[in-house]
């Protein structure tokens, strides 16, 4: 912090002046950022569009930034170091406080996930959110194999999700195959596409790899959109059959229904809870397989490849095959997730598989801490659960509408803004994600200690 020592003023009065100067700079920045976004609004005017100026909002924003920065500077950021140090120290205290609980966090989360449908809070909405969150947990864990373990940056993961979804939708609607038959098939088809993607990009690393995988994701979407004879293009495929419980259907009327077989009253919740358990079990399988693979030669080779590819080759590891297995395994789980998505929705169209989905899944992996299964699960819960909560925040809506007099305020419209803010905060606070450490896969001694994230490489491709 040589800058800070050089600029430290001698007297205490100087410190206040310094803080004011800094806050003024921040306010100026706020002006630049808000002047057009908040300050000017286009409105319908007679004879075209007119401009409405809202300078009070800009001034308000500047005032908030100025006062906020001044208070932070004077009372929270003690010496130098700025935001990261202050937040880092706070989070360090928090981490020390929760240290004894850390061991139980992951098992507790799993137990909670299994009993959730039977808790009194579990209404239809909660279970629906649970299903959505678990879908992203599954996808996050799948992508974690490629990005977190093998260190290959994949921006087109949604392509495999789409392959899985369309595999089930087409096979089920055309050939009448059941969900349970198609599930492994969809995974295998997606894995095949993973390999097909893998081949051309094997020689690419870093940014180039990211761009090609991004393009691949788009190609799949555009093909789905334009190959109308097979995929029905933008209309999508509807009437995708629901999964059955050992051949029993979840319908009110019919021959083989779940409720009549067990002699219980029909409830639409049965199907939802069934779906919840399907995705929970799929996610657990993903987790188990990934955790096992990490401790097996291929998993160690993935991580070694992330650390140093040339050294891998010098030890006789075929990095081509190793990369392909990483792509294939990651894609396989994506395919499982996709086929679950299709059966849950009953309708799919290319719109569900846009780039933003890839970005969200990647954000989950990065926020969670690359390579950490627990971190990815927590990130998925925080992000997807958080988004869904925004939809249901009537009290925020009421509060904003009554306090600021803004009409028709919808918190959900701000989700991308909050998403961006969250990313910035996390990257400042914990640049390596929630779980920034790496747990070794084997120990010779008794003591089990994690490896600091600073030593672990992120991979060059």
């Amino acid at each position, binding site marked *: 912090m040589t800058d800070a020592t050089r600029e430290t003023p001698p007297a205490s009065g100087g410190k206040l002046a310094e803080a004011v100067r800094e806050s003024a700079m921040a306010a100026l920045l706020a002006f630049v950022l808000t002047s057009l976004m908040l300050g000017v609004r286009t409105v319908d005017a007679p004879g075209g569009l007119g401009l409405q100026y809202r300078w009070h909002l800009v001034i308000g924003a500047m005032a908030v930034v100025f006062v906020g920065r001044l208070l932070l500077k004077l009372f929270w950021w003690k010496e130098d170091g700025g935001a990261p140090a202050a937040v880092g120290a706070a989070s360090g205290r928090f981490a020390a406080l929760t240290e004894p609980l850390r061991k139980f966090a992951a098992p507790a989360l799993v137990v909670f996930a299994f009993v959730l449908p039977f808790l009194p809070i579990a209404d239809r909405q909660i279970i629906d959110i649970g299903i959505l969150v678990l879908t992203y947990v599954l996808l996050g864990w799948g992508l974690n194999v490629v990005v977190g373990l093998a260190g290959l940056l994949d921006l087109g993961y949604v392509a495999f999700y789409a392959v899985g979804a369309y595999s089930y939708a087409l096979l089920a609607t055309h050939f009448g195959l059941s969900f349970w038959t198609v599930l492994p098939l969809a995974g295998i088809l997606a894995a095949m596409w993973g390999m097909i993607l893998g081949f051309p990009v094997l020689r690419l690393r870093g940014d180039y790899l990211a761009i090609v995988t991004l393009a691949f994701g788009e190609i799949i979407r555009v093909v789905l959109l334009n190959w109308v004879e097979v995929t029905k293009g933008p209309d999508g495929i509807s009437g995708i059959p629901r999964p059955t419980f050992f051949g029993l259907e979840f319908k009110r009327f019919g021959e083989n229904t779940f409720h009549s077989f067990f002699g219980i009253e029909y409830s639409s919740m049965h199907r939802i809870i069934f779906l919840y358990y399907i995705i929970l079990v799929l996610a657990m399988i993903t987790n188990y397989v990934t955790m096992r693979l990490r401790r*097996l030669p291929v998993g160690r080779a993935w*991580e070694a490849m992330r650390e140093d590819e040339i050294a891998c080759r*010098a030890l006789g*590891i075929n990095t081509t095959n190793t990369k392909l297995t990483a792509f294939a395994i990651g894609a396989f789980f994506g395919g499982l997730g996709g086929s679950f998505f299709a059966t849950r929705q009953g309708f799919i169209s290319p719109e569900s598989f846009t780039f933003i989905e890839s970005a969200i899944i990647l954000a989950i992996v990065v926020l969670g801490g690359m390579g950490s299964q627990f971190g990815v699960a927590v990130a998925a819960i925080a992000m997807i659960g958080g988004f869904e909560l925004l939809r249901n925040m009537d009290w925020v809506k009421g509060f904003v509408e009554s306090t600021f007099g803004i009409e028709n305020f919808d918190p959900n419209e701000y989700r991308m803004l909050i998403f961006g803010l969250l990313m910035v905060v996390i990257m400042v606070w914990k640049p390596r994600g929630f779980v920034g450490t790496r747990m070794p896969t084997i*120990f010779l001694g008794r003591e089990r200690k994690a490896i600091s994230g600073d*030593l672990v490489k992120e991979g060059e491709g």
Partner: protein
Amino acid sequence: MSDAILKVEHMTMRFGGLVAIDDLSFEARRGEITAIIGPNGAGKTTVFNCITGFYKPTTGMLTLTHGNGDTFLLERMDDFRIARHAKVSRTFQNIRLFSGMTVLENLLVAQHNRLMRESGFSFMAVLWPRGYRAHEEEAVEKARYWLEKTDLLHRADDPAADLPYGEQRKLEIARAMCADPVLLCLDEPAAGLNPRESDELNRLLLSIRDEEGLSILLIEHDMSVVMNISDHIVVLDYGKKISDGDPEFIRNDPKVIAAYLGVEDEEVEELAS
């Protein structure tokens, strides 16, 4: 009388217009330590990269012969195939460890190919973990053996990047040994070591040669290492071989003294003594 494990014949390596290695021929004999020395930029590391497949030589033939008579034409093989099938292991001038993995994990990665076969390419072992366990224990035992030999046993569970420089060098050699090589190629193993560490290295390399019966090919600047342990020395200058023989011969070869050691009298005397 030992036969040649590695035969390099008329090898030339060009990078565009630059001739890095010019018609080089030499032999490394089985069970011996062969050193390649030469001034900076003489092409030593290029020779290594050609032998281990990281470069493809422009012309020439590299023949590796195993003890059982299997021969491999290295210039036709990919880098990882040379390590896997021809069993040539190497270390790097600027250490390349898997820094975020523990010392033990580094040594297990080196046994990848054997473990892959034994674990049914890992995927069988996901379904039947039991069968694989014994194989893994065997691999850990092998790693433990090399950790003991390199005095790194107490650091087994530490990340490789936490080791001091000298121990990282030793770990890289241990890792190369875990890959079961028949020829070990060391690129400046003593670089950056203090005299005590360099002494330890000498003992380690001699024990690898005598106890494991391995052939070693090494590039080195440190004359105490080269002269003390090499059975055979090849001297390069500007990509050409200028001398080839045992340490005693090299020490007294005027061409070597002129090209590599300089022509200062004191230096010649220092080496001769």
